[in-house]
C-alpha cells in the first residue's frame, strides 16, 4: 500500500492520519533525531501525565523519565539508541516510567526510525504501553510460584513426582524437592530422570495390597487415588511412610510421592514396646518370686508346725524328741535366714546400707569363713581349702563385715552345689600402687557348673537358674544378687566362670587400702564374743522386761536350766518399780511394750542408779533388727543388744558378757551341740560305674554299718551300690540295694540284714 493510495483512502472516508494517531489506544510519540518531541498522541500524554501541547518541543527524556526496574538507575535513552543503532529498539524488562505526577508505572515501548526517500533518518517513532497491570499480575504469579516452590522444598517430607509408564509401572522422576535430595543423597538434577527403583538398593518399598492397576482404574473413574506404603533404607535403618497421590496431568498418569521419615516414631514405638516387655518381665519375675517365696516359707513352716504338733501328740523316746526338736530348730533357722536375706536386699535397694571401712586382717577373715563351712563340707565329704598368699599378711582397710558376707555367700553356694570334690577359697593381690591394692577373692568348686546361657541370670534377684518343679536345689535366688549389690557398693565387681559338669569359679575384685596399723580394729560381732560358762550364771538375779507371754515362758525355761533367779516385769512401769525395790545383776529390756516402752524405762532406771551410784547392765532385746539398730540402742544408753529371734546360745553369751563373769571356759557342750547340730539329709557322691572291687568295698562297709546300726552310713553305701548297679544295668542288684536303703531309712536293721544276705548272693 503506497502513500498516494493511503492519502486517497483517507480523503474518501474523510479521516486524516492525525485522527488515526489520536485514536490509537497505545501511546505514540514522534521525535526528531535529537530526541525533541515533535508529536505525542493523547494516550502518550495520558501515560506520562503530560499535556500534548506542553510536551511538544521538549526532550523525550524530560517527559519520559525512564528507570531500570532492577537497579533504579536512569535507563539508556532509547531514542538515541535507536538513532545510533539504526534499528528497532525495545525497553529493558521492568523499565519504570516516572510520570509527571511522580508515580511509577511499568512501561513497554518499541522505538523505530523513520527514514526519508534518500534513506537518512528523519524522525523517530515510539509506541508506548502501560504494562503495569500485566506486570503486577506476572509478579504475583512469580511470587506465588516462589512461595509454593519454597513450601515444596522446605517441607519435612521428601516429595518425588513420577510419571507412570504405559504399563502402569513407576516411571521417571519429573520433580523432586530439596528434602528429597537431602534424604536420598542426590542433587535435583541427578534425581530428575531417575526411577525410584534406581535410587538405592537399600531403598525398599513394601507395597500394600492395592496393585498399581487397581489404583489406575480408580484414577480413571474418579480422577485421582491415594495409596500408603512403607519403605526403609536398610543400611541406615531409616523408615519411611510413603503417601502417593495419583492424578492425570497433561494426559499422563502422574504419581506424587510424599515420603515421610517415621524413623523417630518407629524408634519411640520400639522403645515403648521394649519398656512394655521389660515391665511384663518384671511383673512375671515378681509373681515367680512370690510363688517361690511362698514355697520357701511354707516348706520350713511345714517342719516347724508338723514336728511341734507331733512332739505334743505322739509318745517319743528322749532320742526321738531330741531329733524332732533339732529338726524344728533347723527349720526355724532356715526361715530366719530367708527373712534376713529379704531384709538385706530391700535395705540395699533402698540405699540404706553404708560401707564402714575399718582396719582388718584379710587372711584371718578368709580363714574364719572357711572354718565356718568346714563342718558342712565334711558332712558332704568335700575338701575345703583356704589358699591365701603370704604377702597378704599385712592389714587392710575395708568393710570386713560386708566382704565376709559376700565370701560366705559364695562358699555356701559352693558347698550346696557340689556333690563331690573340693572347694578352694583364695585371695590374690592383683595390682599394687603402694597405697592400695586390687584384691581378687575367688571361690572355686567342682560342682554341677552353670550353662553359659544361664550365667547372666545368676546375679538377678529372685531368679534361679533352675526354676522347674524338678529342681534339685531350693533357695530364693537372693544370695548372689545381694552379693553383687554389696560388691558394687564397695566399688568392686563380681563375675563367674563356669563349665557345666566341671564346676564354677566365682570371683570378686575390690580395691582396698593398705593399713600401717599393727592391730586390727576391734569390730563387735555377735559371734566374736567369748563363750562363758553356764555354771557362772548360777544365782545371778535377772529382771526380764517383756510383755509377750511366750517369750517370758521361753526365758523362764532357759533360766531354770541355768539356775538364774528371774523377776518378770510386763512393761516399763513395772520394770522401774522392780528396780526401785530390788537389786539386779542384769536387765533384759524389750523395746516395744504397752504402758511404758523400753527406752523410757531405761532412762528412768538410769536416774535411779545415779542416786544410788551403781550401774546395772541393761540389754535391749528387740525385733528391731535392721542394720544400725544396734548402734542406735547403744547410743541411747543400752549396755548391749540382742536381736529377736535369738537362740539359747546367743542369749547366754549376752547375759554372761554383761553379768560380770570373766572366766573363759567353753560353753555347755550338750546344749550347744544340740543347738548347732546339723539335720540336713544325707548326701551322696556322684554315681560311678560298676567296678567289682569298689562294689565289694561298698558291701563290706554296708555290712559294717548295718551291724553297727549306723543309719547314715548304711543308707550311703546301699545307695552307692544301687547307683553302680543302675549304671551297669544290673536291675536285680539295683532293687536289692534299694530295698536295703528303704529298710535302713526306717531303722529296720534286722530286715536290712536279711536283705543284705540276698544282695550278697546276687553279687556272687
Amino acid at each position: 500500500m503506497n502513500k498516494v493510495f493511503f492519502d486517497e483512502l483517507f480523503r474518501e472516508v474523510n479521516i486524516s492520519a492525525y485522527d488515526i494517531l489520536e485514536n490509537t489506544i497505545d501511546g505514540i510519540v514522534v521525535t526528531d533525531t535529537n530526541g525533541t518531541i515533535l508529536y505525542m498522541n493523547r494516550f502518550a500524554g495520558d501515560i506520562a501525565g503530560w499535556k500534548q501541547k506542553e510536551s511538544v518541543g521538549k526532550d523525550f527524556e524530560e517527559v519520559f523519565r525512564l528507570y531500570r526496574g532492577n537497579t533504579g538507575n536512569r535507563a539508556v535513552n532509547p531514542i538515541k539508541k535507536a538513532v545510533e543503532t539504526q534499528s528497532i529498539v525495545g525497553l529493558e524488562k521492568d523499565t519504570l516510567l516516572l510520570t509527571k505526577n511522580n508515580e511509577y508505572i511499568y512501561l513497554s515501548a518499541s522505538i523505530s526510525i523513520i527514514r526519508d526517500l534518500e534513506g537518512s533518518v528523519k524522525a523517530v517513532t515510539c509506541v508506548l504501553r502501560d504494562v503495569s497491570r500485566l506486570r503486577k499480575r506476572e509478579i504475583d504469579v512469580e511470587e506465588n510460584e516462589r512461595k509454593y516452590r519454597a513450601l515444596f522444598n522446605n517441607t519435612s517430607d521428601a516429595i518425588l513426582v513420577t510419571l507412570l509408564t504405559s504399563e502402569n509401572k513407576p516411571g521417571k522422576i519429573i520433580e523432586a524437592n530439596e528434602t528429597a535430595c537431602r534424604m536420598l543423597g542426590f542433587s535435583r538434577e541427578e534425581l530428575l530422570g531417575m526411577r525410584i527403583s534406581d535410587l538405592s538398593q537399600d531403598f525398599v518399598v513394601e507395597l500394600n495390597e492395592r496393585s498399581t492397576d487397581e489404583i489406575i482404574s480408580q484414577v480413571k473413574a474418579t480422577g485421582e487415588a491415594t495409596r500408603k506404603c512403607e519403605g526403609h533404607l536398610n543400611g541406615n535403618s531409616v523408615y519411611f511412610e510413603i503417601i502417593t497421590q495419583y492424578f492425570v496431568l497433561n494426559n499422563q498418569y502422574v504419581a506424587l510421592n510424599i515420603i515421610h521419615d517415621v524413623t523417630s516414631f518407629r524408634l519411640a514405638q520400639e522403645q515403648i514396646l521394649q519398656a512394655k516387655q521389660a515391665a511384663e518381665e518384671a511383673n512375671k519375675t515378681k509373681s515367680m518370686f512370690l510363688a517361690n517365696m511362698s514355697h520357701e516359707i511354707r516348706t520350713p513352716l511345714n517342719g516347724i508346725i508338723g514336728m511341734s504338733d507331733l512332739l505334743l501328740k505322739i509318745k517319743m523316746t528322749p532320742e526321738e524328741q531330741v531329733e524332732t526338736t533339732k529338726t524344728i530348730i533347723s527349720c526355724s533357722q532356715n526361715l530366719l535366714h530367708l527373712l534376713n536375706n529379704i531384709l538385706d536386699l530391700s535395705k540395699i535397694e533402698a540405699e540404706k546400707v553404708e560401707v564402714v571401712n575399718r582396719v582388718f586382717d584379710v587372711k584371718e577373715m578368709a580363714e574364719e569363713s572357711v572354718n565356718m563351712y568346714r563342718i558342712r563340707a565334711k558332712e558332704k565329704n568335700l575338701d575345703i581349702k583356704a589358699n591365701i598368699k603370704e604377702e597378704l599378711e599385712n592389714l587392710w582397710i575395708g568393710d570386713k563385715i560386708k566382704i565376709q558376707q559376700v565370701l560366705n555367700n559364695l562358699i555356701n553356694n559352693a558347698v550346696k552345689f557340689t556333690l563331690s570334690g573340693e572347694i578352694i577359697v583364695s585371695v590374690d593381690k592383683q595390682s599394687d600402687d603402694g597405697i592400695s591394692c586390687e584384691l581378687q577373692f575367688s571361690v572355686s568348686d567342682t560342682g554341677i557348673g552353670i550353662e553359659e546361657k544361664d550365667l547372666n541370670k545368676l546375679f538377678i534377684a529372685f531368679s534361679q537358674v533352675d526354676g522347674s518343679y524338678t529342681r534339685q536345689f531350693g533357695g530364693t535366688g537372693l544370695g548372689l544378687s545381694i552379693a553383687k549389690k554389696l560388691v558394687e557398693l564397695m566399688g568392686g565387681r563380681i563375675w563367674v566362670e563356669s563349665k557345666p559338669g566341671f564346676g564354677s569359679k566365682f570371683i570378686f575384685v575390690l580395691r582396698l587400702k593398705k593399713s600401717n596399723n599393727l592391730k586390727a580394729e576391734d569390730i563387735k560381732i555377735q559371734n566374736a564374743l567369748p563363750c562363758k560358762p553356764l555354771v557362772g550364771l548360777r544365782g545371778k538375779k535377772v529382771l526380764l522386761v517383756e510383755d509377750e507371754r511366750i517369750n517370758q515362758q521361753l526365758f523362764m525355761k532357759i533360766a531354770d536350766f541355768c539356775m538364774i533367779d528371774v523377776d518378770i516385769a510386763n512393761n516399763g512401769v513395772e520394770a522401774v518399780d522392780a528396780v526401785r525395790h530390788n537389786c539386779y545383776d542384769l536387765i533384759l529390756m524389750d523395746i516395744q511394750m504397752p504402758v511404758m516402752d523400753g527406752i523410757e524405762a531405761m532412762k528412768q532406771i538410769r536416774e535411779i542408779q545415779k542416786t544410788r551410784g551403781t550401774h546395772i547392765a541393761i540389754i535391749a532385746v528387740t525385733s528391731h533388727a535392721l542394720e544400725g539398730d544396734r548402734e542406735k540402742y547403744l547410743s541411747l544408753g543400752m549396755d548391749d543388744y540382742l536381736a529377736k529371734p535369738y537362740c539359747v546360745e546367743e542369749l547366754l553369751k549376752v547375759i554372761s558378757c554383761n553379768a560380770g563373769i570373766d572366766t573363759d571356759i567353753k560353753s555347755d557342750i550338750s546344749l550347744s551341740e544340740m543347738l548347732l547340730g546339723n539335720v540336713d539329709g544325707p548326701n551322696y557322691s556322684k554315681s560311678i560305674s560298676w567296678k567289682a572291687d569298689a562294689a565289694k568295698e561298698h558291701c563290706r562297709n554296708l555290712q559294717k554299718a548295718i551291724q553297727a546300726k549306723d543309719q547314715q552310713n548304711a543308707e550311703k553305701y546301699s545307695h552307692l551300690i544301687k547307683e553302680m548297679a543302675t549304671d551297669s544295668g544290673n536291675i536285680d542288684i539295683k532293687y536289692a540295694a534299694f530295698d536295703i536303703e528303704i529298710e535302713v531309712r526306717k531303722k529296720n536293721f534286722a530286715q536290712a540284714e536279711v536283705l543284705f544276705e540276698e544282695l550278697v548272693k546276687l553279687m556272687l
Partner: protein
Amino acid sequence: MRILIAEDDYASRQFLFKLLSQYGDCDIVVDGMEAVEAFMMSIRKKQLYDLVCLDIMMPKADGKQVLKAIREMEKQNDILPQDASKVVMISALNETDIVFETFDTGSEAYAAKPLNTEKFIKLLEKLELI
C-alpha cells in the same frame, strides 16, 4: 497298710514318717526317680502300696510325673481299680491350677504345706485308709 512317702525336704519327710508310722509300714524315697522305682518294686513283689504321699517339687522327676507313671504302671500290670494306690499330692505350691491339674492326672487328694495334722488324719479317714 503299706505307705510310700516321696519327699525331698528332710523335715517334711521325717514329719510324715513319724505321723504315718502310727498307721502302717512307711517306705521313704527322696526324689521322683526313687518314687517310681519303689513303686515298680512293690508291683514286682506284689506288695502294693495302699497310700502314696507325693511331694510335687522333687529332684529328678516331679510329683505330677511320678503320679502319671504310677497310674501307667498300674494299667500295664492289670491292677484292679480297688487295688490301686490312693495318691495324696503334697506341696508348698498353694495354687489352685496346680491342684486341679493333679486331680486331672488321677490323684485322690491334695494337701497344702504347712500340713495340719488333724486335717491330714481326717483326709486319710475320708479315703477309707484308716
